[in-house]
């Protein structure tokens, strides 16, 4: 019996057999994959078998081009071959419907990508009229055992760099928490906004398209001043337009936290709406060659980012310890009522903290965007790591957030180094670690030992 789509759909009052067939077809269509349909006998018509190869190691799958796939029939004879195109798809014509085995030639995989053991080949049912398809998901290949040890210093170094970037965002988040008690979920969007606006301004007013040089540096400097300024204004504007009025009305922290989530969702998707879903690089700095010091290789831009982050963190620490406003911030985070009775203008201090937090978030967004890429959800992907950092360090302790961020950064990179094969799991380690710390030391590393609850 030959399956014919046109016949399947004609008329509604079909008999029992047709109903069954239609049900079977619905399952097929809904599942978007062609399982176990063996209704047809072998047919002499040529069919198209679509093979998709993609890099699934990140959340968003990336097509992989130029992978050679071989199709064999039940007897093991090669019936067709093909290579994937730029969409990661190879359309292969097979002589008939029936069962075929699709095998990926692992030697044609790009460097750094691998296919999980036992997944190199797959059996596919090809159906007359519908064809068949097979998808292969690749992961990142782990380094071999010998080179793994030599990569350890690099992993630690990258961890410190990553930790410093997380530290700048977390210090702002932690200061906001310390002075207002609010876990600000919109902080992630401040990070993204800083990076995305910097990218936009850089593409509007490019002084030079050349990679490197003063023109490129000037473009980025000018654009990041505007971009970080946008993030600062966004953060301060939220304090003036939303948080201060809510505090005046006596709104609770739960309500404010949920409002911050609403703002986060709105801004995140507004950025995606306007900026697009594709990741973008600051083009003058997109490709740079590594400086090599023994086992550690780093591009000049990432090294500059890390140094800048460190300098900014030291300045923040100095400000909190020795300046008037720094002392006022610490006083408000210790006890807002007491601070306000001693003559500190708490509203002004809180506004300063929001502006400072916004500027730090914007800066960290630019540094992170240079290191990786600018994307609409880059802040959201880091938000839970920020929370992990400030929880580890003790909620509301800015110096704790710094230490917590370094621990999280190094932990994430070492986890990725150890489980090299599947770096997409790298955030799991940090999040699970955060939950374990809460279990045994809920006040965090630097938190005060008090009853929390």
């Amino acid at each position: 019996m030959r399956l014919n789509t046109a016949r399947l759909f004609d008329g509604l009052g079909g008999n029992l057999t047709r109903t069954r067939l239609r049900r079977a077809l619905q399952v097929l269509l809904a599942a978007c994959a062609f399982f176990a349909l063996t209704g047809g006998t072998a047919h002499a018509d040529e069919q198209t078998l679509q093979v998709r190869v993609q890099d699934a190691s990140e959340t968003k799958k990336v097509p992989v081009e130029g992978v050679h796939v071989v199709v064999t029939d039940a007897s093991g004879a090669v019936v067709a071959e093909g290579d994937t195109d730029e969409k990661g798809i190879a359309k292969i014509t097979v002589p008939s419907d029936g069962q075929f085995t699709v095998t990926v030639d692992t030697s044609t995989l790009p460097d750094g990508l691998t296919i999980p053991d036992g997944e190199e080949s797959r059996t596919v049912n090809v159906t007359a009229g519908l064809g068949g398809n097979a998808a292969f998901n690749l992961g990142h290949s782990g380094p071999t055992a010998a080179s793994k040890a030599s990569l350890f210093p690099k992993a630690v170094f990258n961890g410190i760099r990553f930790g410093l970037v997380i530290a700048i965002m977390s210090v702002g988040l932690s200061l906001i928490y310390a002075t207002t008690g609010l876990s600000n979920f919109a902080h992630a969007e401040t990070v993204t906004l800083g990076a995305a606006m910097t990218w936009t301004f850089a593409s509007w007013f490019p002084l030079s398209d050349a990679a490197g040089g003063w023109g490129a540096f000037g473009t980025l400097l000018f654009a990041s001043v505007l971009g970080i300024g946008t993030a600062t204004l966004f953060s301060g504007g939220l304090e003036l337009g939303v948080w201060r009025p809510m505090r005046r009305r006596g709104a609770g922290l739960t309500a404010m936290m949920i409002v911050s989530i609403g703002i986060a969702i709105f801004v995140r998707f507004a950025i995606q709406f306007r900026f697009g879903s594709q990741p973008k690089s600051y083009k003058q700095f997109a490709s740079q060659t590594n400086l090599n010091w023994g086992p550690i290789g780093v591009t000049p831009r990432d090294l500059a980012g890390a140094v800048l982050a460190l300098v900014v963190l030291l300045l923040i620490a100095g400000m909190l310890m020795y300046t008037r406003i720094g002392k006022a911030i610490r006083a408000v985070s210790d006890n807002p009522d007491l601070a306000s009775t001693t003559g500190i203008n708490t509203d002004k201090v809180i506004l300063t903290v929001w502006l400072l937090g916004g500027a730090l978030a914007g800066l960290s967004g630019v540094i992170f965007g240079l290191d990786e890429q600018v994307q609409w959800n880059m802040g959201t992907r880091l938000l839970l790591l920020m929370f992990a950092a400030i929880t580890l360090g003790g909620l509301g302790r800015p110096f704790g957030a710094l230490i917590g961020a370094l621990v999280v950064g190094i932990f994430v990179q070492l986890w990725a180094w150890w489980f090299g094969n599947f770096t997409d799991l790298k955030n799991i380690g940090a999040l699970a670690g955060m939950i374990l710390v809460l279990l045994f030391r809920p006040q965090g590393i630097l938190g005060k030992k008090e009853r929390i609850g």
Partner: protein
Amino acid sequence: MNWSQILSNSLYAAFNATAIGFCLAAIGLNVHFGYTGLLNFGQAGFALVGAYSIAMPVHIWHWNLFACIPVLIVMSSIFALLLGIPTLRLRADYLAIVTIAAAEILRLLVSTPRWVKTTGATDGLQNFTGDFRNSIPFDRPRFNFWKTPITNYDLWVMICGWSLVAIFSVLVWALIRSPWGRVLRSIREDEDAARSLGKNVFAYKMVSLVLGGVIGAFGGAMLAIGNQSANPITFKTELTFFAYVIVVLGGVGKVKGPIIGAMIFWMVISFTENFLAGATDGKGFDLPTWLVDNKNFGFVRFLMVGLGLVVLVVFRPQGIFGDKREQAFDVR
């Protein structure tokens, strides 16, 4: 633009599998947030546990789908215990951060290609609904919901799903007006007062977390059955916040809140998307493309959710039908 078709689709969206799944997730969240004051940001995790606890045994061991229901209850209870033990003694925002992190951990675990044979990785699991399909009592394959054609599978999902909603709503209603429910609400109002009356606050919160989690897991299972796919993309953090909008929209701490909220929520979302699809297709009336085009109108629902959450919580925290005295905001 075909207005009656758009209206029909929007009306159907108030009753379809998605509305059912989110309604159940919101009923669970209402138990946590509305009645107990627990700030659970990981309802997506509970829904994921529900979906995969019915999909994975069918996929791996070829169990009967209905035999997986006890698995769903056990697994979601275990997840609730794992979340609750470290955090329920701590401040409310600790629970929020731990639950959102735990939900993300679960989603990353089922999305990784490492266990693709067990979880289907990012493609998810598909062919697990055979037993549900075989239980369809209608011979007629197609029906019409006003102007929206639906299959007998969709109809059976709707009948089973709304029955579940009814069962859990009655259960929650009965529990909340029992002495046990009064203790829950007193914990929401003043935890220390409840503790000083000799109530074991931790145990009450834990039971509430388990109960709401199991209901949320049923929601995830209905989403998976309705989509005929258990897919990690369904269970992103957005699911949790959609459920929050639904709870706040319908009324925090009201039994009918999640039901009304889910219906209104999905009707509005579906209406907007149907309208925007018609207004960006290059035929007849079109919105200017600098404003919205046929590639980005899908994000508008998230803009609406974000804005809706802010506006509701700031200006009408008790929701449309809620009672101002029965709201979980402003407790601490």
